[in-house]
């Protein structure tokens, strides 16, 4: 199959989930009860909102990830053609990785990699 495979597999996934949902709705028992519809919190009534401002640490790591993931994306074409290009590619990637390593060292020094 060519690239239409992506669409085929996408649709197959949709059909699988929607179909199983439908089947489950058809045969599962239904009973309603206001207590049952409360969010689970170890059997207690929930206190306070859930959608609050979350710890900033997660956000910092997401930013760090973004930086490094873009670098990985840059490395992909380099890795593919490395065998044909030889020494020039090696020198260039050393410079690139040196700068990247400096960035990591800077983040490390600044304490961005620490979880508290």
């Amino acid at each position: 199959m060519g690239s239409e495979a992506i669409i085929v597999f996408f649709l197959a996934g949709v059909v699988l989930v929607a179909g199983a949902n439908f089947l489950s709705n058809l045969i599962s028992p239904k009973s309603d009860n206001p207590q049952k519809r409360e969010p689970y919190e170890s059997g207690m009534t929930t206190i306070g909102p859930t959608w609050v401002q979350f710890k900033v640490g997660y956000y910092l790591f997401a930013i760090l990830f973004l930086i490094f993931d873009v670098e990985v994306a840059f490395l992909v074409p380099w890795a593919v053609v490395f065998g044909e290009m030889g020494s020039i590619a090696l020198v260039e990637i050393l410079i690139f990785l040196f700068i990247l390593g400096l960035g990591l060292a800077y983040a490390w020094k600044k304490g961005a990699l620490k979880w508290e």
Partner: protein
Amino acid sequence: MKILSINEWLLSFMPAGAASITEMVLIALIYLTVFAVLGLYLVLLERKVAAWFQLRLGPNRVGYKGMFQTLADALKLVSKELTGTVKADKFLYNLAPYFVIITALMALSVFPFTENLQAFDINIGLFFLIAISSIGVIGILLGGWGSNNKFALIGAMRSGVQTISYELSVGLSLLTMVILTGSLQLSEIIEVQKNGWLIVQGHIPAMIAFMIYMISGTAETNRAPFDMVEAESELGAGYHTEYSGMKFAYFFLAEFINMFIIAAIATTVFFGGWLSPFGITESIPFMGIFWFLAKTFVLVFLMMWFRWTFPRLRVDQLLTLEWKYLLPINLVNLVLMAVIVWLNITIQF
């Protein structure tokens, strides 16, 4: 058009348009079946392996030695009531399972199970796999956020930070091997390995890359020892706390399929995919499937073994391991591999 040339066989008795549509439906059906069977039996395998490690019997009542245990469980899950909370964000809550299931299914589509059994031989196969496997986490985040449950939200956030961190290591360790192959196409990667599996060809850096890959692959699938995401003792069930019945089953299924996918990538990239060791069964058609599955299940077993060997990591230990150890080692390893390929001191048979 690689699946056993279904297309040519169909063309012999129907017009071209109908043939291609029938082909697509057939392939989708085949993969859905594979998907379901794999999911069911990986769950059984996990339970059996867990039992062996703890000197128990494991499931052994339904069918011969418990063969149909998970099938019965699946039937039970379908017939369970679908509860959900009134406070949930209904749209995101219902959307989340689609993300995890579709990404797992799409990732499965690019693997060459044997020479002619590959649904989708894309030229950027490995890149596609890395990309698609990182979309799955969106489903987890949506599920955790949409549930409007504190346990679920904490679990989803942990899953987010863990998956994106370890994704760097997965990508970089696979890139290290791409330097050797010079191609991202999975069928070509296997072609290269006819001169020796890549873990042998690339010797030292390849082994380092393999170790890093297995560690970060385990973390990507949120499995123990990296299962803070659904740490039972503190979070209930983590991001799928509010999902019940069939909706819970999607997450459960996707988790096991993802484990298979991680092992299958390692098989394809490090251990020669469907190639037999030293070409011993090369003349027999379809033995490739056996070798592919055998290698993959050895790696799946390894991941189950991890679970019963290592204690759970704390969140700061987890992030330290990735950012202060695996990432720098990976960058150095990348250069090491480049130097080895440049000096041409790879091992080739």
